[in-house]
Structures are given as C-alpha cells and as structure tokens.
C-alpha cells in the first residue's frame, strides 16, 4: 500500500538548509514523497501557520522546498535550521504535462523558478530555458542546471536587461518552433507569455497561485473563475486558461472578498 501523505501532516525534520541568496532559502527533507513536477505540498510550521509550497528538488528519498522571504510565515521558514520540525501534507494538485520528445520553452520569473526546476530536470537538451528576475539577488539556482539559460533582469544586474517576454518573442522570431511553453512567475508575466503563445498557436502551461486552506478542493479559498486552483491546477493549459476570466484580473482575499490582482499580488514575487 502506498503511504497516505495527503491526509494528516507527516512530521519531518529539516535535513539540510541551503541559503540561495538573502531572499531565498531551500529546506531539504529526507523522505520519499510521491511527486510530479508542478504539484505542491502544504507546509505547517507548528505555532505559526501553514502555506502551500512547490517541490523544488526531488529524488527517490529526498525533496526540498525553496522559500522566498516575504511575510510572517516565509520569513520564519527561512530561519528554520537542521532538525527543526515541520509538518507536510500532499502532494496536491496536478503537475505539468510532460512529453519527453517535444521541443519546448520554459519561462521562469523570480521565485516562479521553484516549480519549474524539477520540470527542467526531466526535459531534453534542446529545451529553451528563459529565466528573469527583478535583479541579480532574485535569480534562483544560477548554477543548478546543465542546460543553457537565457537570463534577464529588470535592472540588468544579471543577464540581459529586460523582460522574459521579450526573450521568448526573440526566440520565436529567430525561427525556433516550440511544441509547448511552460511558465511560472508573476501572474501578469504569465498572462503575457500566454498571449504570446496564443498569437503563435503554441500550447502553454502555467502554474497559478491563490490563497489556500484545504489544498484538496473543498473550502473554496483558492477558486479562480470556475477553476479550483488547488485541485484542478495549480497547472493549467491553454484551453483551460481561455475559459478562466479571472486569470490576471481577480483573486480572493482570505476573507473571500474578490479584489483585482494589483491588490492581491502586490506582495507576491516582487
């Protein structure tokens, strides 16, 4: 019988902590977690809170999450040390759809790199890999992959100065033809990537983010249009995205109040 990991928390101790930069830390756990790139887990720090995180490293008996310090929870999370106790449940949601022979592009923005990392490790060598961030310090895993990466930053402090959207357009203009584009980052960035894909008739997969409680499709905290992000997503493909009228427009606050994304995302992936 396969272990039931998506009910009560499995309590794990931090096996290793890797400081990625001032803003990011990665926590490793020695545990054989069933997992597909794009899925997420709920991470509970006892006495603090519980939030969804993507798996950023995964092997047979080890996995990690990478956290960007933002609010109370994530700032606490990056101060955890070896042997500190956290509870996890999951994995939840559907991961990315992978066809190993396809020629694809991966477009990461800021901490949107985290869910794409384990995906990239499953893709073939002619993947086009675009990675942007606000500035140098926000570039996650600069040396992790043996794929070439096209870097850009808003301020030019690392790679090209500019946006990932421009890099993708350039690649397409230069004659590359993609079977699929995978992207994660600020929702507005993903929205633009999606539109570029629509224009060029390239199937696209994006990973959305909403406030979550249950993680398994019951409480309704994470709904986005007719989609339940925790359960139907967090990864959505082009055909789903075309139907999500809240994509890049609306999200629910903790209270359930719907607000525009500027209000909701001001704190996210700065």
């Amino acid at each position, binding site marked *: 019988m396969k272990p039931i990991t998506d009910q009560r928390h499995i309590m794990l101790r931090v096996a290793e902590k890797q400081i990625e930069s001032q803003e990011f830390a990665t926590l490793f756990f020695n545990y054989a977690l069933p997992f597909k790139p794009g899925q997420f887990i709920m991470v509970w720090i006892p006495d603090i809170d519980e939030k969804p995180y993507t798996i950023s490293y995964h092997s047979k008996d080890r996995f990690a999450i990478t956290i960007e310090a933002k609010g109370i929870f994530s700032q606490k999370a990056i101060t955890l040390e070896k042997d500190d106790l956290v509870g996890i449940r999951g994995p939840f949601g559907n991961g990315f759809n992978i066809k190993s022979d396809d020629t694809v592009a991966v477009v990461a923005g800021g901490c949107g790199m985290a869910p794409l990392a384990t995906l990239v490790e499953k893709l073939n060598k002619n993947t086009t890999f675009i990675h942007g961030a606000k500035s140098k310090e926000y570039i996650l895993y600069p040396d992790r992959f043996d794929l070439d990466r096209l870097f850009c930053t808003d301020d030019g402090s690392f790679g090209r100065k500019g946006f990932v959207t421009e890099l993708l357009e350039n690649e397409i203009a230069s004659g590359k033809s993609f079977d699929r584009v995978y992207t994660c980052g600020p929702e507005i960035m993903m929205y633009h990537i999606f539109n570029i894909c629509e224009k060029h008739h390239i199937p696209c997969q994006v990973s959305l983010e909403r406030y979550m409680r249950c993680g*398994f499709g019951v*409480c309704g905290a994470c709904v986005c249009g007719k989609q339940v992000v925790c359960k139907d997503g967090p990864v959505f493909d082009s055909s789903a995205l075309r139907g999500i009228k809240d994509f890049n427009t609306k999200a629910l606050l903790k*209270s359930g109040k719907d607000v525009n994304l500027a209000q909701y995302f001001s704190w996210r992936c700065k």
Partner: protein
Amino acid sequence: MTIQFLGKTLKNPMVLASGILGNSRDILERVHENGCGLVTMKSIGPEPRDGHKNPTVIDLGHGMINAVGLPSPGYLNMENEWEDLEKREFPLIASVYGGSVKEYRMVAEFVSSKNPDFIEINISCPNSEKHGMIFGINPQSSHDVVSAVKKVINVPLIVKLTPQAPDIGDVARACEDAGADAICAINTVGPGMVIDIESKMPVLAFKKGGLSGPMIKPVAVRCVFDIYKAVKIPIIGLGGITTGEDAIEMIMAGASLAGIGSAVRYRGIDVFQKVTREMEAWLSDHHYSHEDIIGAAHKEG
C-alpha cells in the same frame, strides 16, 4: 427527477453544503452544472473576517476536521458577487450568520434584498467563539433568532442546526413555531481535536474543529430522524453523504433534499451527478419515486 421545494423547481434533490467551494458565482455555477440541484453560498457575516490561521482543514481519511472560522467579506462588501449572482440561472441559498439576534436580522434583511431563492441561517457553526453555535443548542434562543429574521426577509427561511443540541427535535420544533420554512441538518459534529504528538500541538490553529464526512453520517441520520418526528416542514439532510445509497438513507430518515460537503473531496466536484445517478438507479430498481421514500424508516411503534 425534478423536485418541488418551497415553491421552486429543482432539477434533483442534491444540495451543495454551505462553506464548500461556494465562494463565487462562477464556482457555484460549476457545481450546478455538475449535477447539483440547489447550491449554498459560503456563510455571510456582519463584518469582514479573515477566519482562522491555517491549518484550518485536515482530511482524516474517514472524514475531515475544520476550523475555517467563518471568513466572510462581510455582507456590505460583496457588491461584485451580488451583481454576478443576479444574472444566475440556478437556484441559490444564501447562508448568513451573526453574533446576536440583531446581527442575524441585519444581515438577513440586506441579503434578502439581493434575491437569493432561499436564506439559510447558520445557528450552528462551532468554529468561532462568538458566533452561531450558542443559538442552535437551545430551543428558546433558536426561536428568538428565527422569528426575528423571518419578519424581515421575503424569501423562504431555512434554519441550519447543530447536532450538539441536547434534543435537536426540540430545537427544530421551536424553529418551526417561529416561522422557519425548512430545516437543514446537520452542521459539523464535535467539536473535535487532533494533536500532533511530535510537536505536541493541536494541528488546527484554532485547536478545535468540526467533524464532517463519512464518519458523521450516523449522527446526521439520527438527527434527521429526530427532526422528522418533531416537525412538518421539509428537511435538507446532510452529513457524510458520499454515495447514492447514503442519500437514500438520509431521505428515509426524513430528509426531502440531500446535501453534500466533504464528499467533494472524496469523489470530485461531479459527486452531485454521481450521487444523483446512483439514487436514480436504486429508485428505479426498486420502483420507488423520490417522494415514496421520504421518512420511510419511520414505522409505527
């Protein structure tokens, strides 16, 4: 099998429980499209409220425990949603809660002006220190809140009860006397608590939470059985229903409609369709109509 319920026609006897998904018109519509005859909004409160910190909802396998803590934008902060909902093409219950008779009345009166098909008052929520539950365990306080709300709304009134009442039949009768048009039972059971032994901490941030799902079905069936004995108004029976046979059991206990909450986790958002089909198959195998079996478990003696 279309159903008549308090003057409205429903496509089937399935009801979406309050607090399950019902956060926006779009998702309510999807639940309706997935075979649910009548959908309930997440309970609406007098003020904006974030609810409790996470963890708030944990699956225990044979059911779940939750202390979401009645998050609500507050009844005055939902203009977008009401605008969306006015264009709906499906029957809707608006659920409301308050911390006092006055608050219940205030919220319900406002919500009534937004034309839901029904208003449900949640006098039974265990997840907030101040709200709800205190009314529902006592016949007198239940009577007070029901009669106050009844006066100010112009849609039928459903009252949602808690299994923690020492005699739920008495409470239901008091609600009927006060003018309730239907009873909805049950809200979550308990409260319960789950402690993680490694951290020595209650798992829910609020420590205690209400139980739902398959494990509470026997309590829900008993409550509906007791209420059916006590009142003449129709009952929405819910608590642990996961299959068509569960729904039939609840209807035999006395429910007219069968609600579903937690089973959305166990069988997916199309659980409503699945359960309806299973009910239909069973009824046609046994040559019964839906009405034939309401309260069928009540024999003489």
